[in-house]
């Protein structure tokens, strides 16, 4: 049996899945100050009568990291930056930064050496300023990590207690400022996240649950909870990821859908293109910083079922109706104070919940302010909200189509997709889905168990894994972005380095991915790995080819575990 729990902002949802079918569900309200309580309460609600040894897997998604960052409850981190030539580091907005001398170039060749005296002085200053955490990030440190490693050594000597984060271990992707932010946030949240994980493990122990426990990442993949401590920031935004995987689980295979999760004040949108959830091309934005964290392309717009409806008097006697962005408690028909889209939906008979008399009352007030009939007013509200969401969906598709292209074939490949389904997930404002679908000329789909789709997504998500291999035959080395080590090519099966072929580079990538999957305890999914991008460049000196550069990116994409029995009807 499988358990999935999504600790969301307002509610914590849980499901129990038996033989690939939803067996029971639970919904409890989230205690903002104590996510663990909410998680445990939801867990108990679905697993109450189940012998713990029958549980095969527990997966949860949580906003704990997101909350820590939003509330500023993170630890101070000293940033030791080795920027080298380029953008003036003074223009960065990172706190507590210490820039030091030294530089690498794009091929990992040292341009400027480190200044040991300066490093010792900087480490001393960091120690005296009371920092117990530091992140060391060098521009192009992923192509040559020796500067970061040497600074780490000096920290060990001069400030031994300091907890260190190295840029090249955090991400091997190009983008120095994002690597700084990602390293900083990882360092700043790790200990509190670790405490949270310990508490969860304790709670499960107390219930004799010995099943493996996973946490959902922002890219919709599961990660063993012990392993997740190494990558705390990857667990951000796992809520929207859970909803998206849930929608994937609840809709027919291979279709293109837009996932609409309408909450109280926000609506989250995600896309599934031909059966694959769409990833953001760059990493997620977190706490005002752009990071390298891989995440689904999720758009959040400031409109929801509880958004306040207002009528404004414009000049010349014209009136304008606005939606949100704020919320003043629940909808009027649910006992609130202000007119909301939920009242309009109730008035028009599009939803079941809510008090019909109060809905009429609310719409009546707005209608008189607007000088229109009540039905007209309610329709205008529903239409307006549906239009805002539809516009945002169209913009998402448009942005995807307008992604930059760096190769001839990428420009030639016309990206065109239109949603076949508009899938409503989550509890809120179901009545709107049909309106949005009409505007997008798609099928409205409210799947069975839609209100706990997020928890289902957590329960049935499979692991994801990426591997970015960079080979430089002229310098006789390779590196795996995710692991940060620079390895000599003499350790590979390559014969003549001048004759390495792309298929051999791909074979090396596949072999390394298999090993990495083993380390993560997910060998069983290694066969799902696919090549995302693979390229080779000749390095030419004068008129001769002196080496080759290979870049191979592989991934185990987001998907569903085989235990889940997919619905074939939408």
């Amino acid at each position: 049996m499988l358990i999935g729990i999504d600790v969301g902002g307002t509610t914590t949802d849980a499901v129990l899945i038996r033989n690939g079918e939803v067996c029971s569900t639970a919904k409890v309200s989230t205690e903002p100050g104590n996510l663990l309580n909410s998680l445990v309460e939801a867990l108990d609600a679905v697993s109450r009568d189940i012998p713990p040894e029958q549980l095969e897997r527990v997966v949860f998604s949580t906003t704990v990291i997101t909350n820590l960052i939003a509330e500023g409850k993170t630890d101070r981190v000293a940033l030791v930056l080795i920027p080298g030539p380029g953008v003036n580091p003074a223009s960065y907005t990172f706190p507590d930064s210490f820039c030091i001398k030294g530089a690498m170039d794009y091929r990992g060749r040292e341009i400027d050496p480190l200044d040991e005296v300066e490093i010792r002085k900087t480490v001393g200053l960091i120690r005296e300023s009371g920092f117990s955490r530091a992140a060391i990030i060098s521009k192009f440190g992923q192509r040559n990590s020796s500067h970061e490693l040497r600074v780490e050594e000096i920290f060990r000597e001069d400030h031994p207690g300091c907890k260190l984060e190295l840029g090249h271990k955090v991400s091997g992707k190009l983008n120095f400022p994002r690597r700084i932010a990602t390293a900083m946030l990882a360092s700043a949240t790790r200990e509190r996240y670790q405490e949270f994980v310990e508490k969860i493990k304790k709670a499960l122990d107390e219930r004799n649950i010995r099943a493996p426990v996973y946490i959902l990442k922002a890219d919709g993949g599961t990660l063993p909870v012990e392993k997740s401590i190494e990558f705390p920031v990857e667990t951000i935004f796992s809520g929207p990821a859970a909803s998206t995987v849930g929608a994937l689980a609840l809709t027919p295979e291979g279709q293109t859908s837009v996932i609409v999760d309408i909450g109280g004040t926000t609506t989250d949108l995600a896309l599934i293109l031909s059966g694959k959830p769409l990833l953001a091309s760059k990493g997620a934005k977190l706490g005002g910083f752009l990071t390298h964290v891989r995440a689904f392309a999720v758009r959040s717009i400031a409109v929801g079922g509880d958004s306040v409806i207002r009528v404004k008097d414009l000049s010349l006697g014209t009136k304008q109706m606005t939606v949100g962005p704020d919320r003043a408690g629940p909808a009027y028909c649910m006992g609130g104070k202000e007119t909301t889209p939920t009242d309009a939906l109730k008035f028009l008979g599009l939803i079941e919940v809510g008090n019909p008399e109060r809905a009429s009352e609310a719409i009546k007030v707005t209608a008189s302010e607007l000088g229109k009939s009540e039905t007209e007013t309610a329709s205008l509200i529903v239409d307006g909200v549906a239009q805002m969401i539809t516009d945002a969906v169209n913009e998402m598709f448009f942005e995807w189509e307008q992604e930059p292209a760096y190769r001839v074939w990428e420009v030639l490949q016309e990206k065109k997709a239109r949603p076949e389904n508009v899938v409503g997930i989550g509890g809120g404002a179901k009545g709107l889905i049909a309106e949005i679908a009409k505007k997008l000329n798609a099928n409205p789909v409210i799947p069975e168990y839609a209100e706990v789709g997020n928890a289902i997504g957590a329960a049935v998500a499979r692991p994801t894994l990426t591997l970015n291999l960079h080979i430089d035959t002229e310098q006789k080395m390779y590196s795996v972005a995710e692991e940060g080590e620079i390895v000599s090519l003499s350790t590979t099966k390559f014969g003549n380095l001048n004759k390495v072929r792309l298929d051999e580079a791909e074979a090396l990538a596949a072999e390394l991915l298999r090993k990495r999957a083993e380390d993560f305890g997910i060998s069983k999914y290694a066969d799902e790995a696919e090549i995302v991008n693979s390229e080779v460049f000749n390095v030419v000196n004068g008129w001769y080819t002196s080496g080759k550069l290979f870049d191979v990116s592989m991934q185990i994409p987001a998907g569903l575990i085989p235990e889940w029995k997919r619905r074939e009807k939408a």
Partner: protein
Amino acid sequence: MKLGLGRLRDVLKTGSGTTPSEGEKEQAEGQSKIEPEEARKTKIEGTKPETPNGNEEIIMELKKTGLEPKKEPSLPADRTGAEKTGLIFFPAFDWAISPTHPEREERLLYTRDQIFEEGLMDLPEIAEYKPRLAEYRDIARVHFCVPDIKAQATTPHLIAAGSCLVLGDALMKAEVKNAFALIRPPGHHAMTVAHGNRGFCNINNEAILVEYLRKKYGIRRIAIVDTDVHHGDGTQEIFYNDPDVLFISFHQDGRTLYPGSGFINELGGPKALGRTINIPLPPGTPDEGILYVLDSLVLPILKDFEPELVLNSAGQDNHYTDPLANMRFSAQGYAKLNEKLAPDMAVLEGGYAIQSALPYVNTGIILAMAGLDYSCVKEPDFKPGMFVQAARDRKTLEEVVAAQLENWKNRDRLVEAEVAKHGDFYRRKKQIFYDTDMIQEFQEETIRMCPDCQGYKTIDSHAHRGVDDTRIFGISVPIYACEKCQAEAREEYRKRLIHPGYEYVYLQDKKQDEYRAYNTRTKKETVY
């Protein structure tokens, strides 16, 4: 070296050079395979609104790059409120002239690594756009392609040109304050008649952009400043008789470098004298010399000309490490040049020091155009003050500047005097050499000396390529031609169709935005 009226006769005789080639035919092993697996992704950040009232989350910048239907010129929008620098990075990682040719897949690889590692695409001051293909009619607006457009403008060429058009539209719609097309393949050696590849170029990206913007947005006066180390002979030739296009090129002295032209006596056709300004630079000229030319000559002339648009035909081969030339310009120099010149748009041309120069030069140019601090951009081996200009070279430059300022000041009188010397037509003969494709071309160009407009142009071109021999005839009607010239030119086209000597006859009616190519063998006419 000042050019007096008496020497104008010599100017008119000067053809394009036939000096050694810039690239050589190469053969080497090596492969480049790109897997067409589609990486599913978008640029949307996976975020919740940062603030509860994140209304701005809904407001998005739409990047319109689709093909526009043909219509009357729309007016360029007011750009005073625009804040971003538009950027297209199109490195064409899957295209090369040949595996070890300077124009190969790897050319912008390290530039990508540098600008991506710097995070430039994330800066709020930068808006990245997606390339598109230029249409055949965009090419036909500038070139007579032999035998046809498809043969000269392959897909990568169409994308490079199309990228310029995308950014041109963004500029005219005031989505951006300026723009940089960091693209390949380059184009500034491509002339009106395109028989093949010259100096790595087949079609002229800047010229295609200029004619597209004039047609679509009704602008007229444009200045092109060619900062590539090689003379922008293609661009010069295309606009040689157009008084509305000011073409300024500085480059390593043509006596020492391909294409062997760009001397100060090349001043423009009779009705456009002084609208072509060449500044040959002594080999070894450092930042100091180029910035001197910019301050004392280029900027004053630009100010005087009052163009509606300034383009930088931005080669990076003036760099002190460039393998094909001998100048001593640095990344700081390039950044400063773009800051001072403040072009509305820069289009990458040459630059073949792909490791030692391009990553740093491009970072510098992008930062400078975006109005950001570029003071920390420098090449690994660069030391301030490492290149000083020789006094003798400085004196040479001062003379060139003085002569060209004089020509500029006297341009209207030069035109008057020259026009008086010709009757109804002005003719010149030219020889053009295509280094890459080893083609020798002979041309006779005729300009109608019209009192009401710049006059239509005809080109009779004869090309030898090995044993192949092709002769074509092309007629070009300028966008702002008078109706009489237009009618006369169209009549000329009809007459030439039955002329036995030509394999292809072309009509380029920019006024009508109508382009025809006639194959005299198959008797088939293609209309673009």
